[in-house]
């Protein structure tokens, strides 16, 4: 079976006055219908990787890759029109904070309907019905009421469910979730993950889960890619954090305070220049 997404030697370069920043420096992976996590700290290039696949890199950046293919479509050669129809249609993205990623001046229901009618030919009544169904699918108790609310009238957890509903309503094949639960409380975080998990499983989507939280993703995803300074330094099977070999990954796991451990002071990460080489 050919993979859903093939990324080979992806590079993202931002030109600056002093020469430029290499945000992503040769990332290679393939994705099937599975849950893949990309983990790293700020500046590791994890979000830039997700954005390059989605086609959301700002125009001044230079993207290059030996291959960047989504179900047979060469994303680097695709026309802007093709990219637009993929974006939000077959490839969808959930962003970190619903406060900033939902339109503040449009009711929630209308935003969901807007996504749906942009990508599929449905009538107004049908679109509304499907939006309500989708809100119910992300476990919003009173979809009719929430449909008419503005984003500022709902909590962060509910806003994030709305965002997921909006992204999944067109039935994408690939979902890129960029820190989808980092802005949420721990208890709400798990509810949202649970919904995401169920929908991804039921619909057989591919999921790229971008996060800084190594422990969270290893409990959630099938595979984990660890990024450092624009490169993948290690790939781990889920739940195998204890088998991590790269000193960066090990350091990252070690420096998190855990309940029931008594380590004073905490071990800190001793960054070595050769990791970034």
């Amino acid at each position: 079976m050919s993979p859903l997404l093939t990324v080979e030697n992806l590079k993202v370069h931002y030109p600056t006055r002093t020469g430029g920043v290499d945000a992503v420096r040769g990332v290679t992976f393939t994705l099937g219908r599975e849950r893949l996590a990309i983990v790293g700290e700020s500046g590791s290039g994890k979000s830039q990787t997700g954005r390059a696949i989605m086609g959301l890199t700002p125009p001044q950046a230079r993207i290059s890759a030996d291959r960047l293919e989504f179900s047979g479509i060469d994303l680097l050669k695709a026309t802007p029109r093709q990219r637009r129809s993929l974006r939000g249609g077959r490839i969808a993205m959930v962003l970190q904070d619903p406060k900033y990623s939902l339109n503040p001046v449009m009711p929630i229901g209308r935003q969901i309907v807007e996504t749906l009618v942009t990508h599929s030919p449905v009538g107004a009544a049908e679109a509304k019905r499907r939006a309500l169904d989708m809100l119910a699918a992300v476990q919003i108790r009173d979809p009719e009421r929430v449909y008419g609310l503005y984003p500022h009238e709902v909590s962060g957890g509910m806003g994030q469910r709305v965002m997921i509903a909006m992204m999944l309503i067109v039935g994408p094949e690939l979902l890129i979730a960029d820190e989808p639960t980092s802005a949420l409380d721990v208890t709400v975080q798990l509810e949202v993950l649970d919904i995401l998990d169920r929908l991804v499983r039921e619909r057989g989507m591919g999921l790229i889960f971008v996060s800084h939280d190594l422990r969270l993703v290893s409990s959630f995803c099938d595979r984990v890619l660890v990024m450092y300074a624009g490169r993948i330094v290690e790939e781990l099977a889920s739940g195998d954090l204890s088998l991590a070999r790269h000193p960066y990954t090990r350091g990252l796991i070690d420096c998190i305070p855990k309940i029931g451990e008594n380590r004073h002071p905490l071990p800190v990460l001793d960054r070595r220049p050769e990791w970034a080489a």
Partner: protein
Amino acid sequence: MKPVLSVENLHVRYDDYRALDEVSVTVGQGESFGLVGESGSGKSTLLRAVAGLAPVREGTIHVDGQSLKGSRRPRSFYRKVQMVFQDPYGSLHPRQTVDRLLLEPLAIHDIANAEPRIRRALDEVGLGPSFRFRYPHQMSGGQRQRVAIARALIVEPEILLLDEPTSALDASVQAEVLNLLEQVRRERRLTFVMVSHDLGVVTHICERMVTMRHGKIVEALTSEELTAGAVKAAYTRELLAASKGFVRAN
């Protein structure tokens, strides 16, 4: 243990919204005390109420034997109590150098010998003298948080109020800042009151804590009790379960 900070029957309201509802806590001298809960639980409001940054309707706050009502604080209060905020990007003046940022509290409190104090403060938080004339945008998040800690410590307070001091930082930087906080607490015999949503961080730093929800205290417990799972309230148990990560429902 001699109490250094106690809060009695505190009520904070924003219009009709009860942000804090009859909250009482006591923190002993040299202790490290945690406030845990979800957003909107009132944990940050409690910290801000102590610092005089939230409208206190009712109740009394005792600091070092001094009784405080309402939200006005005498200047001498801030020599004893200082605060470190969550977001190091928002809590430092963007157009002031580190030198200027550290000079301000000294000027406010008429503290002499600014020069050696600023040098010592930077040294204490592990920033070299080269950072002294930098602007906040020329530093990383962790370095900024070190400056914020230096600014709080420079007036030699007894109590440090910490509002999610590491939640905006990367895990590796969080470890460094937590180590720094523990080190200064030990060296200066400080009292900490720390807000966090991360039970791992709270049990690491604090000996005792309360969990809060909807502006009320749900449960008071020690770190050992939490570690051993000896929690009574259902909500605390929920928080504890959530901190263990995702469990796939089948």
